[in-house]
């Protein structure tokens, strides 16, 4: 299976708000698998969002099991139509993006979040996330709203609390 081509900044599609997924069918499952395969081939990616490969729908993958150091996680996740319902605390962390090669920067994210989404079959799921996994989910959900980590950069000397 060939990886899907990844859009790179400043492609306008990366700044576009995505449409909700309404049809849960084999084609969607196949796309999620193809997206996962694409992330697998990227440089140590722990998440990827559908618009990064030009599919302007609210679907993303979050996988904190791929962190270099073990972190609390909910396992590899396919999140469809995700929405953050609660968030608490703040932490500074360094982020990079498959769509923005060769640049990393500091971003402030909520330390813990709760989110609701649908799985690949359309069933409602909820998760509590903290730290690194919460950061991945916030980064990916931002993609679904056309927001890049560049839009959230803080001073390179910011140091609220490194994770």
């Amino acid at each position, binding site marked *: 299976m060939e990886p899907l081509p990844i859009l790179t900044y400043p492609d306008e599609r990366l700044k576009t708000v995505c449409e909700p997924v309404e049809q849960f069918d084999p084609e969607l499952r196949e796309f999620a698998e193809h997206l996962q395969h694409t992330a697998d081939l990227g440089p140590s990616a722990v998440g990827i969002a559908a618009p990064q490969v030009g599919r302007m729908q609210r679907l993303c993958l979050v996988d904190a099991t791929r962190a270099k*150091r073990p972190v609390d996680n909910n396992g590899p996740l396919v999140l469809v139509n995700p929405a953050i319902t609660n968030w608490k605390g703040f932490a500074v*962390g*360094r*982020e*990079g993006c*498959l769509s923005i090669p060769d640049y990393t920067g500091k971003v402030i994210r909520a330390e813990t979040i709760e989110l609701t989404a649908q799985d690949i079959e359309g069933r409602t799921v909820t998760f509590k996330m903290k730290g690194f996994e919460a950061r*991945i989910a916030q980064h990916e959900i931002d993609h679904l709203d056309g927001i890049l980590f560049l839009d959230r950069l803080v001073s390179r000397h910011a140091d609220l609390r490194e994770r």
Partner: protein
Amino acid sequence: MTQPWLLLTLVGADRPGIVAHVTRVLFGVGAELGETAMMRLGNQFAIMMMVRGAGNPEEVAGLLESTRADFGLKLHVDEIDAALHQHREPDVSVIVHSADRSGIVSEVTAALLEAGMNILDLRSDVGGSSDKPIYIMQIDGESSQGIEPIEQCVARFADQGLTVRVTPLETMRG
């Protein structure tokens, strides 16, 4: 053939407009800017800029002579073996603070070197009051042997009144 990168260093009393004036001159002759870093140290302005396409070091110094003189700056230009897209990511942060005394940077960085840490970014500052200064240092780097040797190596500083915090960093990429 592409001209080599030059590293342009400007220092002097801080005044509004230095960066705008310098870059206007460089842009005016078609120069390309690479990575730059500006800071204020001890109430003085300092900037380092990667520049190319504006001639050799002597020619660039000549172009900026008027601006340099107007702002009372010191200018230094070197040809360097540099390239863009060479970023490296830190995986460990070390933060040190204590009452100010001589030798802190030397002792801590020697310990970090011994523990296999390569420093990628360092900032230090003196705060507190004139009669009771405190020293704060923030270092980001690469830990070639993992974080444990670094933690063990800096533990000795607790006996010397230094607080040293070692934190693993991981860049989230998605």
